[in-house]
């Protein structure tokens, strides 16, 4: 700080407190709604203090779900989301780190071409080519399956870039020393490169986990059996089927359940998250 201005300090804190309030308020309200009974919304405006239906609402959603609305128990959907997010993030990291290794540590024909082919995936988000991609997956018989949820979104240009940039900063001497000691490429990769990349892997894992957890359009299209529903698409289903006389307490409890896991990940691993975010976008 350049100079001390008490009024400006006061203003700064005021702005931040208002800002935090703005950011937090929708979630606070959702939480309040999720602790209320269905009749509390008939008066016309949302209550601002918690009710005492917390356990009833959450128990109901987690255990039995809203089967009339075609929404399976949330425990199942949460498990599906967790499985999908883990498979997507681990898969993305695994296939990207080996391709970055090939691109940086080998010289072979079509190397630049391979790099550009991977780069293209960055330019083609699922939303843009949704119909033909759906057709490919349907033709391969991967609708309503975990591979169908995971494999089509598993290629990652960003992760490949990140690992490539990182490998380029690893000192040449590491590899030369390893070769003098008689290590082959795979041994070098496993014993030296992987341990060196651990922070990058962890940071990337957080970003990819959130990406995987928040997948929406893709799971919505390729899963028609409730058994494979994920939680993010589940809450939408809950909200739209119940529209008309929406059961706000249940919908908002669903939103809280769907949002909590990734938010907790960010709050508890903030430093790694910031590192991952800032570095993947470079």
């Amino acid at each position, binding site marked *: 700080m350049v100079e001390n201005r008490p009024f400006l300090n006061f203003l700064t804190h005021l702005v931040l407190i208002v800002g935090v309030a703005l950011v937090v308020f929708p979630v606070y309200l959702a939480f309040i709604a999720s602790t209320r009974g269905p009749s509390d919304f008939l008066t016309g405006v949302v209550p601002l203090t918690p009710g005492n239906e917390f356990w009833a609402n959450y128990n109901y959603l987690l255990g039995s779900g809203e089967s009339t609305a075609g929404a399976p128990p949330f425990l199942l959907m949460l498990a599906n989301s967790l499985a999908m997010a883990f498979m997507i993030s681990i898969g993305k990291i695994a296939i990207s780190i080996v391709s970055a290794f090939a691109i940086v540590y080998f010289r*072979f024909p079509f*190397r630049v071409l391979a790099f550009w082919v*991977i780069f293209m995936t960055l330019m083609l*988000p699922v*939303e843009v*080519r949704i119909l033909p991609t759906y057709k*490919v997956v349907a033709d391969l018989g991967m609708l309503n399956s975990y591979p169908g949820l995971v494999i089509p979104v598993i290629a990652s240009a960003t992760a490949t870039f990140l690992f490539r940039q990182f490998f380029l900063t690893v000192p040449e001497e590491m590899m030369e020393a390893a070769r003098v000691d008689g290590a082959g490429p795979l041994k070098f990769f496993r014993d030296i490169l992987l341990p060196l990349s651990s922070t990058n892997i962890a940071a990337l894992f957080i970003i990819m986990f959130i990406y995987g957890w928040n997948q929406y359009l893709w799971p919505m299209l390729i899963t028609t059996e409730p058994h494979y529903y994920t939680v993010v698409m589940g809450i939408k289903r809950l909200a739209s089927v119940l529209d008309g006389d929406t059961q*706000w307490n249940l919908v908002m409890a669903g939103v809280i359940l769907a949002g909590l896991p990734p938010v907790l990940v*960010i709050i508890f691993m903030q430093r790694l998250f910031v590192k991952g975010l800032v570095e993947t976008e470079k």
Partner: protein
Amino acid sequence: MQTKRTVFHSRVLPYFLLAPQLAVTLVFFLWPAAQAIWQSFLRQDPFGLRNTFVWFQNYTRLFNDPDYLNSLGVTFVFSVGVTVLSMSLSLLFAVCVSRVLRSARFYTTLLVWPYAVAPAASGLLWWFMFNPSVGIIPYLLTFLGYTWNHRLHPNDAMVLIIIAAAWKQISYNFLFFVAGLQSVPQSLTEAAAIDGAGPVKRFWTVIFPLLSPTTFFLVVINITYAMFDTFPIVDATTSGGPSQSTNILVYKVYADGFIGLNLGPSAAQSVILMLIVVLLTIVQFRWIERKVQY
């Protein structure tokens, strides 16, 4: 392209290592993209039995279609709205956080978590806040004499999705602005202070111009976000309505292709979107090259 000074020698291994990534890319990215391009030149007869090659007819029809032109306009308003709203708020918060020293970490934690909330969930949160019958904001607006109803009023619906999309993006912009502000040299601000510039003047004449690379980068990222990642927000709240007033391009591709099953026109829309992404990516990478030179 860069490699190591010395490399491993193997004829097969590198291909083997690249195989999984390339296979996924070819099967699920390039092949569908190529099909979309091919499809966009075809017209299917009403029974879906025959395809005729119609050159650019799908495209010309698209640009004569009032719905599509409307969608372009809607997307423009939406992207600009989201970008301006979320970037100005995040810049304000970032400047404030960089002024407070002791509690910076505390405020940061409270401001970054919306990044993790799924866009669909963010849509539902604001849908609840703005709900005409139980929402708190329409309730407060009645005191100002305004009857909010995003199911009937196009402008209300647009405001709703802009706020829902911007809310989620604040944390992202905030983190990049904080990083940008940290790289502004302290000595410049001090020099300006000695020359008698107050905090506001210092910000606009010294700090803000030095932030311009970050700002430019974020503008590109935010437009990309608003155009392509906000599908769930629209789907969970307005579904493109009322009367197409929130039918952004990505939503329209989905609605026309999956619900309307108009393969040719939908494919043509996909191709146009791909061109936009390519353009945005190129702009983004040009920026990175420039930054590296500094």
